[in-house]
């Protein structure tokens, strides 16, 4: 008789998920799944609304990466309007997107993952959280809070609000940047550099202690997808998509937002409200791929900013070919944070950032439009159709977490197989299985969401109904 281990809820995650692990009668792991348990219906209830409302409505999909939704949505609207936004507006949005990347990576690394990394996978669950980190390693705890504050304060300075700013609109942004605000942002940069340097140093010191995790945390070949610039440097806001295989060879390059839905499809599995994206020519699941920091650093050839460039070179040394273990998402996130700070500094050094032309206006000039951007956790795609009056008639979104879904599920299985032997497991082992999911930084409110959180009580029952093992986490 087979048995099931349920981890519910998976904690320190952006949203609600459960993990189930199926064991054979012999106690060997036969299958494991990561379930996303919320569904929200934005694709359907946006119908009938005016297209120019989309950015601020779609941002409410997610309070962690609302900026990515604002940008992808605004770009889809601009395709419908057939306008190109002013240079200053494009740079301001680029800065906003980078600020969000820094704050979201700080959330993922420090608030959600660092308790495992700095306190240990087996640490007391009652202190294994950001407050525990702040108590045990005050400098690092404060660096994390500081980096998140850095990103959120830039968003607030630009858009007047930290969460759900209304500043990004179809055609550009509503307000130019004032010199006073620019100077405020510039004044925060030295502290941000110091904080990220502290984090990189600490991470590199401890990473060696996680050899076993590195080997089994979704460590396998996959395809990868991310935005990239023409000069093959990293890009979060413009550029086109490149899909590479597990050796780094290009499968398809120059995928524009308009072409995305021809290239990528989505499959449904019965156990998750989040769909599974794949590259259509390869079919499902062979065409599955990973997105996000690991994918981006595997795909790009350059960062384009000096400090991050040196870190990228070091990152690429982690493995002989592409860096395959999802554990290295953590490292990639730190490199990208450094890049974000450098790039923001670079953008602000150009006086054109204070330009007054920040918004293009137009009506409906096309009945269909798509936009894409890199969210902190990976590629985000919005696709709308409208009628002649600009009312939305159809919408489809492909979010990062759906594109990582197959790898997350296989990663949970890989770790469960490695750690759960003869039906035996401990709290620390289950935490490791959860930690696999944390490496991907999935955003479950983006990908759908909303389950009840029940106590975690696992009973392993043998074929004759006898409880052979039992773990309760509370």
């Amino acid at each position: 008789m087979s048995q099931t281990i349920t981890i519910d809820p998976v904690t320190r995650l952006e949203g609600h998920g459960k993990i189930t692990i199926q064991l054979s009668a012999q106690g060997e792991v036969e299958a494991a799944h990561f379930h996303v348990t919320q569904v929200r219906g934005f694709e359907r209830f946006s119908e009938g609304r005016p297209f120019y409302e989309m950015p601020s409505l779609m941002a409410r999909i997610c309070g962690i990466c609302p900026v990515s939704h604002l940008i992808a949505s605004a770009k889809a609207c601009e395709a419908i309007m057939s306008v190109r936004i002013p240079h200053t507006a494009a740079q301001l949005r680029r800065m906003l997107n980078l600020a969000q990347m820094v704050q979201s990576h700080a959330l993922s690394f420090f608030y959600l993952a660092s308790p495992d990394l700095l306190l240990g996978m087996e640490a007391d669950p009652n202190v294994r959280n950001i407050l525990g980190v702040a108590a045990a390693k005050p400098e690092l705890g404060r660096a994390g809070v500081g980096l998140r504050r850095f990103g959120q304060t830039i968003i607030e300075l630009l858009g007047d609000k930290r969460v759900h700013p209304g500043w990004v609109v179809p055609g550009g942004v509503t307000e130019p940047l004032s010199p006073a605000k620019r100077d405020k942002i510039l004044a925060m940069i030295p502290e941000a550099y110091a904080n990220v340097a502290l984090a990189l140093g600490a991470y590199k010191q401890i990473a060696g202690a996680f050899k076993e995790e590195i080997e089994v945390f979704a460590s396998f070949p996959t395809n990868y997808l991310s935005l990239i610039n023409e000069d093959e440097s990293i890009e979060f806001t413009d550029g086109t998509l490149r899909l590479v295989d597990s050796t780094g060879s290009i499968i398809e390059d120059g995928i524009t937002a308009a072409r995305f839905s021809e290239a990528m499809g989505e499959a449904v599995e019965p156990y998750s409200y989040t769909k599974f994206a794949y590259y259509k020519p390869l079919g499902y699941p062979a065409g599955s791929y990973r997105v996000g920091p690991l994918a981006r650093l595997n795909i790009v050839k350059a960062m384009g900013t000096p400090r991050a460039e040196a870190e990228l070179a070091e990152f690429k040394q982690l493995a002989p070919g592409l860096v395959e273990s999802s554990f290295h998402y953590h490292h990639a996130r730190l490199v990208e944070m450094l890049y974000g700070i450098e790039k923001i500094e670079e953008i602000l050094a150009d006086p054109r950032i204070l330009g007054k032309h920040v918004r293009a206006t137009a009506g409906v000039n096309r009945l269909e439009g798509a936009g894409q951007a890199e969210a902190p956790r990976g590629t985000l795609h919005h696709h709308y159709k409208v009628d002649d009056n600009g009312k939305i008639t159809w919408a489809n979104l492909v979010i990062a977490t759906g594109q990582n879904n197959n790898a997350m599920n296989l990663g949970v299985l890989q770790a469960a197989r490695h750690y759960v032997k003869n039906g035996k497991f401990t709290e620390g082992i289950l935490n490791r299985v959860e930690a696999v999911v944390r490496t991907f930084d999935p955003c479950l409110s983006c990908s759908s969401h909303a389950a009840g959180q029940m106590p975690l009580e696992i009973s392993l029952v043998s074929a004759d109904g006898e409880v052979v093992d039992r773990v309760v986490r509370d």
Partner: protein
Amino acid sequence: MSKLKLATVWLDGCSGCHMSFLDMDERLLELAEIVDVVYSPLVDTKKFPDEVDITLVEGAVASVDDEKKIRKIRDHSKTLVAMGDCAITGNVPSMRNPIGPEAILDRAYIQNASAQAQIPCVVVPKLLRVVRPIHEFVKVDVFLPGCPPSADTFHTALTALINGGPLDIPALTRFGA
């Protein structure tokens, strides 16, 4: 004196209210000196504790699991705070109410799928027909509007709740803030 117990819960919301809670930044670390965060998406507790002094709830009630959960939370919380517009009015999640769950699921998993089109039904919870705010299920003690309420709002309101001081909510925040 033992520390006050604080919980934060996430039902059908976008996590924006939780992000705004975190936007207290260093003030959150100071707060942690006088309260224990005993249950939250940010900590590893899997079971809602028996006795919590203050529970902040984000989001509306949208699935059978949400409903079960909000009742349990009420039973074990002294002060229940509806945090943000979704918890108070249904806000964005309730936009699906005129459409109904079948059409929502059909669009996402049948029409907008290119392989294995099907409605997920294994382990995932059933959706309620209508998304409703939490006070339609249980008694709410404090309503903190905003989409999301600002970090300053959280800080002022929590300080008042912890110290038992006066709390003038309309002076702090409003719907859509």
